[in-house]
């Protein structure tokens, strides 16, 4: 898949995961993996970008005497998901148009 496209999709996926409740790195990966393969090292830049753009907030929680970073979606983050859906509605329309291509003419 195109890298740029994958990054956009992953950002939206992470935000969607967080919209179901605050989560941490390892769990986010587990939650996304059934839909889109993501490795630990690809998730990190995405989380940083989301944090820098203020789509998520970060806080730490003590867990088994170590710290775990939790990510929480912000209102901006929710807006971002909405934007994503609107954008993809358009893409879907285009897709449907492309999909209406008549393959019967391919013999030519």
């Amino acid at each position, binding site marked *: 898949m195109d890298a740029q496209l994958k990054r956009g999709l992953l950002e939206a996926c992470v935000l969607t995961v967080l919209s179901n409740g605050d989560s941490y790195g*390892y769990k986010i990966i587990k939650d996304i993996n059934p839909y889109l393969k993501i490795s630990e090292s*690809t998730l990190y830049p995405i989380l940083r970008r989301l944090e820098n753009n203020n789509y998520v907030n970060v806080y*730490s929680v003590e867990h088994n005497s170590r710290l775990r970073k939790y990510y929480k979606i912000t209102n901006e983050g929710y807006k971002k998901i909405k934007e994503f859906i609107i954008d993809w509605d358009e893409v879907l329309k285009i897709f449907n148009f492309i999909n209406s291509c008549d393959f019967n003419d391919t013999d030519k």
Partner: protein
Amino acid sequence: MNKEKFLNKIDENLKTIPIIERMKIIQYFNEIIDDHIEDGLTEEQAILSLGDINDIVYGIIESEELKRNKIDNKNKAELKEQLKNLKEDRENRNFVLVNNDYNKKETQNNDKDNNNGRKYTNNKYQSNKNEGKEYNKSKSHYKTDDLNINIDINKILKKTENMVEKGMKMAKKAIDETDFNFDFDFSNTKENLVAKTYDSSNNIKDIIVEDINTGITVLESHDNNIHVKYYESEKEKYNIDEQNETLKIIKINENKSIFKWFNYKIRNKLELYLPKEFYGKAHISTNNSTIDVQNVNFNKINLKTSNGKISVYNTLIKENLDCVSSNGSINISKFICDNNTILKTSNGKINIIHGYGNNVNCKTSNSSIRIDNSNFDNDIELITSNGKIIFEELKVGNKLYCKTCNSSILGTIIDNINNFTVDSHTSNGKNTLTNNTNGNKILKCKTSNASIKVNFIDYPNEETNNK
């Protein structure tokens, strides 16, 4: 490969990234590995599951690089704008010059005509242009005088323009080198710098470094010996000697040239490699430059600089940690200091992340103090002025004292509010604290013209806050 080795390897390969960013990355992978282990993998398996270390590093550098390029371009754009303004400025001045030349020619033509009436207008004209000049001077004198002045101004303007352009070029070079070359380029040897090393396998318990205008980095040694990497030129030399378990590194004959200011940060750097379990005393001082200490444990450490940053990372200190700077920030992260931590600077931020210790004392001015995810068993004293004080998820053993002015105090303390005797005061600002004399611990917050917002989080266990 175990976790520590793995994280160290990532750390080493990311030296081009600023330390704070690097720390966050290490923290992230540390957490991920721990989570994998908790899920049933062994440490070895957990690390294997992360994939090839080079791929990881490449992925991160690529994304970090992207950000840095953006900054780079932004700065370049600013510089372009400045150059453009300069050009416009010069064109305007040329325009004035052309006008002057035109006037001059006119004067000469009028002279040739030698017409009285014209002479009069000519004189009148010139008197307007050159106010304050003696009117009854002879015409020819007048003319040459005028001419001389014009030539001089021309020359001077041209010279200044050239100099300004040179200056801009130098500034551009300086900006390029200082901000964007994280890899220090030692090959730039205008002054015949010679790279030297000094190795010691003796038992050293005390280290003294006295340097000038040179950044100092303390790193972990890969064998158990001490190594010093440094640069000498004809005018700058070091005196290194060992006596009674003490290693002294002292700079002599500092080059006083003012132009060095542009270069020293880039070229000269003293690197001191110590065994991880050093547990000796260190006294390190320099000026106009940074001090960076990483991954080495000490008994006692004293860092002193001016106009430069101090950063300490991943360190265990048995007694005191003492950092003094001015006009520079102090960043201390991932450290344990069994006794007192004293951080003093001015006009610079103080940041503590993941600190554990007994007492901590932070003093700065006109800048903020921030403590995150830290735990101090005894007293915490944070004093600044005109700067915010922020603490997040702080655990207080005995006392927290915050004092600033014209700026707010914000934070969360992991504790029950009933354990604290609260004494807070602000003027012209909101205060979420109510003063009481409930508990054994003390919380004192003083500011003015700004708000105090301190929350208490009482976690009996992690489930309560994991929504």
